[in-house]
């Protein structure tokens, strides 16, 4: 019998199959977690009813996080949130995180829901993030959410897997975000459509969990169905005392078959940006140095962990944000915000001239809380710089360290020259 990749093995175990299914096969799988947020749950609940389901099949496996519209920007959204809160109570959903808890993916990671060997179906494209913890995690739409809420299962196409081996480790001054952007340069936005990307090598094993989070999170921008880091000692240590459930780590078989294999040398990387307006429009920070920056945004499900926010805040301490540049810092979770406060770094951000946003998706998806104007240039730690994403301005994607250098100087600046 031919062995399986992590993707094949996790799908097999959740579809009741003994053998790894072939890429391209459709399987009907039962997820461990069904993740939804304030946008997707509102539509998903309606779809569930339209599909003929009155009740959630397994309320104990549903995780609902209010993160996109927090605090509520208007009456219409407030009314929707009230309806969703009633639904949560009616359906007996316990894993409910209301406004202020943070971004769904960051909350799940921090609270010990993201677990090796599990299947996570989330009605948010960045659900791939949980692959950092060895899960097979993928995004679904609102009708699929209604279907899986009501029936407890969903058909999935088994993906091909692409193997990436990251050799050596990142040099000083080069962040996990730079590795993620290097992956975008390698794959482009079309390089992994419908595939699962498996990350191997010393350069990945060397990453802390929040750094793996940044890496897996970007894989949907390559078109990937999942972006998985095989669980190891770092994963186990992170989950020790944190995991909310027991789990069975899944690693690829020795004879697993990959559609292809790429090698990236981490030691050769330098600080990178994704220039407007495509996530694979990669250039070095050095080449973009001197570009005026009107807005700096730090946070999101890509770089919103406490460690990311701290990396930024420690660099802005005792500095001032450049005149004419706005700074918005949005911790990914309530815990990250509390640590920012306890450490005194929140005062440093405010003293430097920055603003601190409510943990959540904030301005990243362009609805409220820091929208760009015509002609504005933003350096942000998010994962998308699509045209018009945050309003009419243009977005450069960068690491927290590069964002700090840009905030202080009001122009794109190589963080290695500053810090």
């Amino acid at each position, binding site marked *: 019998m031919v062995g399986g990749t992590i993707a094949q093995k996790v799908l097999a175990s959740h579809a009741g199959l003994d053998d790894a299914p072939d890429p391209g096969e459709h399987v009907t799988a039962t997820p461990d977690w069904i993740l939804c947020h304030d946008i997707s749950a509102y539509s998903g609940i309606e779809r569930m009813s339209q*599909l003929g389901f009155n009740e959630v099949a397994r309320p104990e496996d549903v995780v609902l996080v209010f993160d996109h519209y927090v605090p509520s920007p208007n009456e219409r959204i407030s009314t929707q949130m009230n309806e969703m809160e009633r639904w949560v109570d009616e359906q007996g959903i316990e894993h409910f995180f209301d406004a202020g808890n943070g971004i769904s993916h960051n909350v799940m990671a921090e609270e010990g829901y993201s677990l090796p060997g599990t299947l996570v179906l989330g009605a948010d494209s960045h659900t791939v993030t949980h692959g950092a913890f060895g899960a097979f995690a993928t995004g679904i739409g609102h009708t699929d959410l209604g279907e899986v809420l009501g029936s407890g299962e969903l058909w999935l196409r088994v993906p091909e897997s692409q193997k990436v081996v990251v050799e050596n480790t990142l040099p000083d001054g080069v962040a996990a975000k730079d590795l993620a952007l290097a992956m975008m340069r390698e794959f482009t936005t079309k390089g992994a459509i419908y595939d699962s990307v498996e990350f191997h090598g010393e350069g990945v094993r060397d990453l802390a969990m929040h750094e793996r989070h940044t890496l897996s999170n970007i894989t949907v921008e390559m078109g990937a169905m999942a972006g998985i880091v095989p669980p190891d000692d770092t994963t186990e240590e992170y989950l020790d005392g944190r995991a909310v459930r027991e789990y069975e780590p899944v690693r690829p078989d020795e004879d697993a078959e990959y559609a292809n294999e790429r090698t990236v040398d981490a030691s050769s990387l330098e600080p990178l940006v994704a220039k407007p307006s495509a996530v694979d429009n990669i250039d070095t920070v050095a080449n973009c140095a001197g570009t005026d920056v009107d807005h700096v945004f730090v946070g999101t499900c890509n770089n919103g962990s406490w460690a990311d926010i701290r990396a930024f805040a420690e660099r802005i301490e005792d500095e001032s944000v450049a005149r004419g540049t706005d700074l918005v810092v949005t911790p990914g979770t309530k815990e990250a915000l509390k640590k920012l406060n306890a450490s005194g770094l929140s005062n440093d951000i405010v003293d430097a001239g920055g603003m601190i946003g409510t943990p959540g998706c904030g301005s990243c998806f*362009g*609805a409220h809380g820091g929208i760009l104007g015509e002609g504005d240039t933003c350096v942000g730690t998010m994962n998308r710089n699509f045209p018009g994403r945050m309003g009419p301005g243009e977005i450069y994607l960068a690491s927290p360290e590069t964002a700090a250098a840009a905030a202080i100087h009001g122009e794109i600046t190589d963080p290695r020259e500053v810090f």
Partner: protein
Amino acid sequence: MERVGPAHVLHDDIDTDQIIPGEYLNTVPDAKLGEFVLEGYDPEFADQVEPGDVIVAGENFGLGSSREAAPIAIRNAGVGAVVAESFARIFYRNAINVGLPIVVVPGITDHVSEGDEIRVDVAEGVVENVTTGETFDATGLPEDLLEILEAGGLVEYRKQQRA
């Protein structure tokens, strides 16, 4: 399931934010989403698109968000079908689930000009540029997904099953 109409030709990597910007999510009823279709790509697009028109796009159409509002906006603007060189994964599922006909034809944008009359037969897996007379084999949908699409989406499919 056959659709015939003039083509709107779009380039690679049209993302969901361009198809329906985030500001309209949960703030505009589904029935009105068509009025804002592709606003992030071209603010005039919604005024120019006519019922029955066909979108012909490059690679990776619909990349980005899981927002189902994207295919709903296209469907509700009256677009008859989307022919693309490839689709992003979540958009592909969402399109079938909401009953928006889609087919894949690698390289199609090299063979279609703006306004060309396009015939799309989803079930047969054939796309014809009626204006030039060229025909193309499309990657058809598996039978189970075709049934959902022909019913008008998963909700309608379930209603038919229950009836």
